């Protein structure tokens, strides 16, 4: 078996890769039914949450490449916590990483446990009496680059479940704040998570949802389908254990002949309009500062005026910056 005579270097590389995949496959864990919702398993669809409790094996298994990424994530989590502990010893203020992989449970209103989970570690800085919960995530670089605040984590559908995971721990332990440690190339990013009113409400909604899910799983019933084709498209149970009806949004049909005529005119004059705009911009750029001049048949007059602008330090600017999801509207019109 060890005879590699006749194999090219490419064959050898392929053989190593294949064995790597087989090795990861051997470590694959099979999902088994469980009675409580995992803290990291917040989903928009309650039906999906019930199916994850009752028939988790009805999801397509993760491809081996995903297993490799999970392994890498676990390795990074361990390495980051070790580094953090080392750095903390000589830091000012000093900090300590402790209580790693601490298990927690959240009870519902009926008294039964509905959410369970583990927190990666606790971080005690300076003379803090107890450590603040710390959750390590090794998400994709593209995702991490877009995260500055906890709201960024919450608003992204791919990271929302991770956001709930730490919130659940803060809520359960009644901790006022915690940290998300995000791995990236360079110094990891530490995002503060506060259990403020908004996050408290988010967590109560998650808890209420988990209660309904646990009750449905116990009684063998399934909640209604979610009315969101995009969510169904992403769901691992779609087509295996769940076959919902699909209702696409559909486009609007605007039936105003005047609007159609305006659009035709807009299209017909578009190129001329663009050419004029480019010329206008170019001329204004070239003639900036010319106060009085003639050019051929043209008289040119310009004057300086006061322009008031507000220059704020970046941290203050950020403090007063709000993200309005409907603040910008981009329109694309195309004649087909």
């Amino acid at each position, binding site marked *: 078996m060890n005879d590699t005579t006749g194999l090219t270097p490419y064959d050898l590389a392929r053989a190593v890769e294949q064995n790597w995949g087989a090795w990861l496959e051997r470590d694959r864990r099979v999902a088994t039914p469980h009675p409580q919702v995992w803290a990291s398993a917040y989903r928009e669809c309650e039906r999906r949450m019930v199916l994850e409790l009752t028939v988790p094996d009805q999801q397509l298994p993760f491809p081996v490449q995903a297993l490799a990424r999970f392994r890498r994530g676990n390795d990074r989590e361990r390495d980051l916590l070790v580094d953090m502990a080392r750095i903390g010893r000589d830091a000012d203020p000093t900090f300590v990483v402790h209580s790693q992989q601490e298990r927690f449970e959240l009870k519902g209103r009926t008294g039964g446990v509905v959410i369970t989970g583990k927190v990666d570690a606790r971080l005690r800085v300076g003379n803090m009496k107890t450590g603040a919960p710390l959750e390590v995530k090794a998400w994709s670089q593209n995702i991490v680059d877009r995260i500055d605040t906890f709201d960024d984590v919450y608003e992204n559908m791919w990271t929302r479940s991770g956001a709930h995971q730490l919130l659940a721990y803060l809520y359960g332990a009644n901790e006022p704040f915690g940290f998300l440690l995000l791995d990236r190339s360079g110094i990891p990013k530490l995002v503060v998570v506060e259990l403020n009113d908004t996050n408290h409400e988010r967590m109560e909604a998650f808890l209420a949802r988990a209660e309904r899910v646990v009750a449905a799983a116990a009684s063998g019933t399934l909640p209604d389908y979610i009315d969101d084709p995009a969510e169904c498209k992403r769901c691992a149970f779609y087509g295996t254990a769940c076959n919902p009806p699909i209702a696409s*949004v559909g486009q609007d*049909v605007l*039936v105003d002949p005047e609007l159609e005529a305006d659009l035709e005119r807009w299209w017909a004059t578009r190129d001329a309009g663009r050419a004029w705009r480019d010329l206008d911009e170019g001329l204004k750029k070239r003639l900036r500062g010319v106060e009085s001049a003639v050019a051929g048949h043209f008289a040119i007059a310009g004057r300086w005026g006061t322009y008031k602008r507000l220059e704020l330090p970046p941290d203050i600017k950020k403090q007063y910056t709000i993200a309005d999801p409907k603040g910008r509207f981009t329109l694309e019109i195309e004649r087909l």
Partner: protein
Amino acid sequence: MTNRLTLDGEIAPAESVPADLALRDTRVPATLDQLAAQKEHALEILEARITVLETSRRRAIRMTHPPDWNLYKDREGVVIAYLSDGGCERVRDILGVEVYDVSAPEKMANGDGSFMYLQRANGRSKLTTQVVEAMEGGRSSTEDFCRDAKGAQLELLVRKATRANLDGNIARELMGLRNVPLTELQEAWQGTSKDWNQCRKARGFGSAEERLGATREGVPDVPPPTCPVCKTPDGKLPLPLEYRGAKGTRGAFYGCRFYAKHPQQKVFVDAADWVAKQRASAVKTFESENAQLDAEIAAREGQS
């Protein structure tokens, strides 16, 4: 259902839209009687409805990507395109395709241990109000996408693909994207970087290797001559002749695949002659280009 009319930038509620305008909306079912009642506006309404459907169809095709399409070529050389399940998913929102009354997937075992799943559902389009009933989707465990799967994974894979195929079949049927002429794809992609040559080439495009761009063994590597009679489906380009290898005492030649269509005008090009001419002209072109380049270099260096 919302019928909208923009008046000074406002969206008017459905009930305030005049009937002759409301009927322009394809989402409003219109009977012949209703159209006839509109008298002189009837034709205009019909045209408006057709325009909405045509624009929507073109918009849907424009949203797809070349790998979403499988191309099939028949013996006549006519190429038609078939939108894949993945492509259907991309354009479903344009026609507002709904899939409902979905049955549970039904497993059908074949004698050899392989199996297939079958699933049925109804569908409708919000845009056209068209309804299709008892549509079927099915996939088999012997298909290519299952090659490395086994056990429970195979079962889940086939079931998932069955649902995707069912959704795709309904969307294709409602959108008429099962047999799309190649010219329609080309027109819809005009002004974009999408190229029909990047579509998946299926039956009628030669062996698996040829579909990926390889040439047939023994076929000369020069561009083939073209038929003076036959043209591509859009009528713009002449069709290339096909190479036929030497057989017995007959030498190799290029002939028209559709020779039966023009029996009066036989098209026959001797392969050896053609190849020799092509190679000679290629050498000539190469030599003349080289000479020109030499002259330019020499001129720049002041040696001429």
